[in-house]
């Protein structure tokens, strides 16, 4: 066989055989097979995520009529507008405050739910999740009624004590408060369920060891619970920060950005400019502005997680 291979006429044949066998070897490799099997999903992501993302970048570089390339013209225009900076400020206040309160309330509720005996705990867990499972567009409509200046239950109750009425959605400070309140109400159950799962994964013996070491209730939370939950806290915070930052429905339904654009967040203002105002490139530019802010937050939070990865 070996001598035959050295005959000049058989060289092309040998080359074809080598090609076929290297293809077979490539297919046999696990990484190749894994890539081929995930290819449909990769294509799906490319079509559904990457294409629209790049398309919106492309849109942001066009003029209002979408006929001319203007480069960074839309961004330069935005930077000069006072409303834009107000939206930046409001988005940051809204997202950060809401996430802090959601995390805080979620942690406290999770802690109490964790201490309820298991059979009753399931019922409480289910009930506490209700705000999160109702479509926010629906539940926000109910909140809209609760905030109504004339007929709302809130102002009626306050009236019984001789207080109010409060312009819940009519004054900038109150409107911002109301939006954050509804967002916290809607989002806290997500934190609660994530923290509850994390609490359950902390070994009971660590608490016992801490109790014997002399830690009181608060010290056990500070020195055992929180450090053990750090990664899950970081991930839920990042996730919630992204979702809250991009929140649209609550602000849209409650105030539609008012009064005087003072409660607009990026999503609602992008909608106002792009869809209602008919300037799609400008709307795209606004929505793109969320990306760098969230990227910075993500880098900080994820870097912390990977640094601590070797502890658990």
């Amino acid at each position, binding site marked *: 066989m070996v001598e035959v291979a050295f005959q000049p006429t058989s060289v092309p044949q040998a080359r074809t055989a080598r090609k076929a066998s290297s293809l077979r070897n490539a297919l046999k490799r696990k990484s190749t097979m894994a890539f081929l099997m995930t290819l449909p999903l990769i294509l799906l992501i490319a079509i559904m995520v990457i294409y629209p993302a790049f398309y919106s970048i492309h849109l942001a570089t066009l003029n209002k009529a979408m006929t001319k390339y203007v480069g960074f013209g839309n961004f330069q225009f935005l930077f000069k507008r006072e409303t834009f900076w107000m939206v930046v400020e409001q988005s940051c206040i809204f997202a950060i405050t809401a996430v802090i309160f959601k995390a805080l309330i979620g942690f406290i509720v999770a802690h109490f739910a964790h201490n309820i005996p298991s059979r009753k705990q399931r019922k409480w867990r289910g009930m506490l999740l209700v705000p999160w499972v109702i479509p926010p567009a629906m539940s926000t409509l109910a909140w809209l009624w609760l905030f109504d200046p004339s007929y709302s239950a809130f102002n009626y109750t306050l009236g019984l004590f001789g207080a109010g009425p409060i312009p819940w959605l009519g004054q900038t400070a109150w409107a911002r408060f109301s939006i954050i309140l509804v967002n916290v109400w809607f989002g806290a159950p997500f934190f609660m369920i994530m923290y509850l799962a994390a609490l359950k994964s902390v*070994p009971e*013996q*660590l608490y*016992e*060891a*801490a*109790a*014997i*070491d*002399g*830690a*009181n209730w608060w*010290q056990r939370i500070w*020195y*055992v619970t929180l*450090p*053990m939950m*750090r990664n899950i806290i970081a991930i839920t915070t990042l996730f919630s920060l992204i979702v809250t930052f991009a929140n649209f429905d609550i602000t849209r339904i409650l105030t539609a950005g008012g009064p005087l654009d003072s409660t607009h967040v990026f999503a609602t203002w992008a909608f106002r400019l792009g869809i209602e105002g008919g300037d799609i490139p400008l709307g795209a530019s606004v929505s793109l502005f969320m990306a760098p802010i969230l990227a910075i937050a993500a880098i900080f939070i994820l870097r912390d997680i990977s640094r*601590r990865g*070797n*502890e*658990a």
Partner: protein
Amino acid sequence: MAEVSLREVVKRYDEVEAVRGIDLDIADHEFVVLVGPSGCGKSTTLRMIAGLEDITGGDIAIGGDVVNDVPPKDRDIAMVFQNYALYPHMTVAENMSFGLRLKHYPKAEIKSRVAEAARMLDITDLIDRKPKQLSGGQRQRVAMGRAIVRNPKVFLFDEPLSNLDAKLRVQMRIEIKKVHQKVRTTTVYVTHDQVEAMTLADRVVVMNKGRIEQIGTPNELYHHPATRFVAGFIGSPAMNFVPCRLEEAGGKLNVRVTDRLAFALPPARAARYANAPRNEKLLLGIRPEHLSEANGHAAPGVENFETVLDVTEPMGMETLVYFTLQGTQVCGRVNPSAGARDGAPLRLAVDLNNMHLLNEGTGAVL
């Protein structure tokens, strides 16, 4: 340092009574091991001493003070857990100093105590590592170090060696004994391994079904077990129990095992069993080490008999032989050169000076 005493201590979980009225006095500096099978209530007892479980009834006192309602942190105890329970986010030094830091000890003292404990346990090089970077044995040392630095009144060990492999277990056993010799702190140690209990304890407490079966030094338990449970639990391989009865023949007391096999009791044993019932069903308790190959020399109290072996287990330094007597499997330990083979006959010698007679019904040792 302090003594620990338990009076009529009961623990009940809903319907189940885990600990059923325990009385136990542990002296200052003493190393007491609670041993028993799973579910015998030994861990629950330890956890009640620690304050991790409420007690349903009775009193627990540490250093003369009743601590029934005192939280764990105020009992001045330290505990080593089976799975170490080290704080994964803290370094070895932080783990060991955690209790002292909570009590606001001066930094210099914390440092010197940690260094001293680390030196004693040979973990000085590991002081800046996190628990994840340590092996099982090293983690166990750190857990012990965490207990030592506190300099508590009482050390509590909850099956600390169960997660280690056999070789490491032997090593750590010696380590624990050395530490106790140095610090002399009153220690309560829970294990299900009777070898650990025998090798470590000043006194062993054998527990079964929530009660104490017997308290005694390792030698007392081995030579003078009070019940069938203790006789069977202490010693490895376990004591053999063969149905038998006592009979008098020619003014001598015999223990009859089968129609064709009876052993004459040596005078000391005959005197002890002089008043034992003659017609009741009894059990002859004999440890494998007292069943060896017959060597031709007649010794007082040693009787020879012929048997056919079922199975042999060569262990190197000795061979375990198994044969059947009265439908019961019996184990003996013979010299590897005795020629014991599966299915072959062998002449064995039983040392009746170390025998026990037990009441089959009550399990009491006569």
